[in-house]
């Protein structure tokens, strides 16, 4: 693992842009070099032509070379930049005519046409030299003709080509950089799309990723899917184990409670009775927790394979109210159901019943004696509201309360496992709804189950 995070997209972008820049520079250099060669060749050809016409104008008369310089020999060296022209004609090593110091002997006729770039007359010149042995009587005469030209026009041409090449290179680079940005973005897009799709999933959604992905990503997706399968199996195993454990614990607990209550009837000593009562209380708490764990496991299981049926929420609530009224009366509480006419939805009756029961349970638990627990079934939007007159939810914990085993800071010694709200929320989410908690201004709190 590297210390700093790297971005694939940035790396791809910079690699492509760097490559484009390198190519642009390379293009410029190649064009320039090539242009230089071509331009130099052009100048050399003209110098050669001038040289040849001078050479052809030479005749030997009485051992002395005469050159009748043709007008074209120099006129052809006219350039756009008005380059300066120098020339020299040597017989043997002696200057016959022209500029002294332009070419130095000894001259060798076997060299052939020779081009050189050198300084002359305060400027850089291209010099062409050709030596020939002219037949003259007993011994041939060596004639050397040199023509030189400054390189202003060449430099001008080269500059113009360089500017154009630079413009082309720059345009190429800009285009390539744009394409690099586009390419890197579109290359990384499937990756971010997949990440987004996985991130959008619910916490319990461990289905394998099936959307088509680029072949380069398929090993990652395969690993991810295999991990999720294992995780899912492991989760299911834990849930099953928890449910099994809760179930196994609940039955003996009920037996123990019965025995404890029977014993309570029989003992008279106050301290013994108190001990038994707190024992029963602890047993209740464990039993309730085990029940909620079972509920939760059931919700989790059924939530994954939701069974939707046409159900009447009011009917479910009325049944629950009827069932729980004795419990409420034991605590001197009143259960009130507010509903007018049936409210029908598509849903899983067992889950919804479970959720509402947990909410009413909670309300009963936290309500002060003589209070009223109000259950309201709303039609638009479809929701079940359970309100009590208790101390309300601690405001700062509102969002955490529906997490597993989380209890309010003000729960005090009230019996509870912290699973009630979690169950209600899981049910709401399984139906595509949500659970909302709110405190009432005049005391009390409401839990609203939107479906």
């Amino acid at each position, binding site marked *: 693992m590297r210390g700093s995070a790297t971005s694939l997209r940035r790396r791809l972008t910079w690699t492509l842009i760097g490559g484009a820049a390198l190519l642009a520079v390379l293009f410029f250099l190649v064009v320039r070099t090539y242009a230089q060669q071509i331009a130099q060749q052009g100048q050399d050809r003209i110098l050669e032509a001038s040289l040849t016409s001078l050479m052809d104008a030479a005749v030997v008369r009485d051992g002395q070379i005469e*050159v009748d310089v043709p*007008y074209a020999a120099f006129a052809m*060296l006219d350039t756009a930049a*008005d380059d*300066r022209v120098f020339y020299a004609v040597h017989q043997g090593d002696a200057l016959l005519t*022209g500029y*002294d110091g332009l070419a130095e002997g000894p001259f060798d006729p076997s060299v052939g046409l020779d081009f050189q770039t050198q300084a002359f007359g305060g*400027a850089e010149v291209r010099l062409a030299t050709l030596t020939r042995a002219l037949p003259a009587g007993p011994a041939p005469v060596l004639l050397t003709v040199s023509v030189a030209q400054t390189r202003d026009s060449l430099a001008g041409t080269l500059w113009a080509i360089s500017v154009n090449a630079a413009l082309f290179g720059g345009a190429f680079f800009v285009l390539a950089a744009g394409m690099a940005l586009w390419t890197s973005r579109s290359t990384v897009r499937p990756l971010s799309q997949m990440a987004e799709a996985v991130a959008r999933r619910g916490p319990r959604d461990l289905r394998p990723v099936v959307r088509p992905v680029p072949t380069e990503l398929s090993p990652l997706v395969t690993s991810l899917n295999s991990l999720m399968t294992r995780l899912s199996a492991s989760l299911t195993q834990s849930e099953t184990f928890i449910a099994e454990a809760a179930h196994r614990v609940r039955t003996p607990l009920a037996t123990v409670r019965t025995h404890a209550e029977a014993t309570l009837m029989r003992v008279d000593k106050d301290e013994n009775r108190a001990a038994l009562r707190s024992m029963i209380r602890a047993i209740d708490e464990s039993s309730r927790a085990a029940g909620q764990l079972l509920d939760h496991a059931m919700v989790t299981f059924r939530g994954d394979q939701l069974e939707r049926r046409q159900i009447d929420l009011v009917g479910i609530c009325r049944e629950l109210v009827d069932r729980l009224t004795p419990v409420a009366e034991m605590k001197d509480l009143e259960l009130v159901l507010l509903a007018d006419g049936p409210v029908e939805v598509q849903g899983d009756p067992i889950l919804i019943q479970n959720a509402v029961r947990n909410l009413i349970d909670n309300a009963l638990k936290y309500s002060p004696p003589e209070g009223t627990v109000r259950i309201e079934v709303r039609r638009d939007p479809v929701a079940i509201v359970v309100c009590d007159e208790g101390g309300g939810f601690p405001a700062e914990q509102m969002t955490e309360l529906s997490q597993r085993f989380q209890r309010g800071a003000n729960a005090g010694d009230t019996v509870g496992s912290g699973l009630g709200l979690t169950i209600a929320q899981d049910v709401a989410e399984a139906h595509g709804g949500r659970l909302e908690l709110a405190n009432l201004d005049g005391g009390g709190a409401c839990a609203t189950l939107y479906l």
Partner: protein
Amino acid sequence: MRNFVSVILCLWASALAAAELEDRQMFHGEDGVTLRVLSSTDTDIFAPIVEGFITRNPSVSVDYAVAGSADILTLIAECGDCFDVVISSAMDLQLKLANDGLARRLPGLAQQGGSQWRQSVFGFTLEPATVVLNRAAFEGRPLPTTRQELIEALRADPEHFRGRLGTYDVRLSGLGYLFATQDARASETFWRLMEVFGNLDAQLYCCSGDMIDDLASGELFVAYNVLGSYAQTRPETLDKVTIITPEDFATTMMRTALVLDSTDVGGAAEAMVSYLTSGAWSAQDRPGFPLPSIGDEDAQVLNVVSLDPGLLVYLDRLKRELFLEAWSSALLR
């Protein structure tokens, strides 16, 4: 650089007689710098231009020196620092000065357009070589309009014209040499005309001015390759002579100006060249400009000598020897 220049010029210099100034005159501005101009144009013709320049640039005084066009190169070889601006009708010699690196480049002036070479040599007049005739001598005779007609006229009455023909001594005059070499390039008729001239004991002159003087006085009947512009600047001679621009071809030179690279008064020198070239392009704005401007010549068929390295050809020592040999054998019998 200086060594290089003196080396390349010494051959040329040694081939000529000792060069000296024909005239030297100071045109005083208010104060400030003195611009030393070396020119092949006679002072009386050029004075209005210099005065116009000083009117525009009052802080510059002009030291105007006149030398034969062929002597200018020698004078500069002897003392490169003695002058700032060179004005000459010998385009080939001006081009050589620039080619040999003695002329300063003036990119600002090259923008103005017109004829220039290497942003150094700037043409500012367009002056055809003409045939000037003494009017009285051609009384009752048809006026020749081409070289061929001139040859025929001379052959028809050789005794009338014997000793009354004049042309440049190309050995002494740079402009004469330029005209002759360009004529020779253009047509063989030149050589036939020179042979006729040679047969009729032609007089040789150093300068257009002298030829026009002798034409006006009746000493000469025909002068070949004279600058018509010189005759036109002298109103008193105009009624005595007829200026004919040959219709077959009219070799036309540009008077050119350049600034020597060694100058210390580059600003004033550039102003002078700028004044000359702008005068050439807007002659209607400069009524006092005495020389024919480039803009003046309209649809006439002129064989304008172009400023290109070809001009260096006839300056080659061997080429010059060959040409002078041919010229001498035609003209000096």
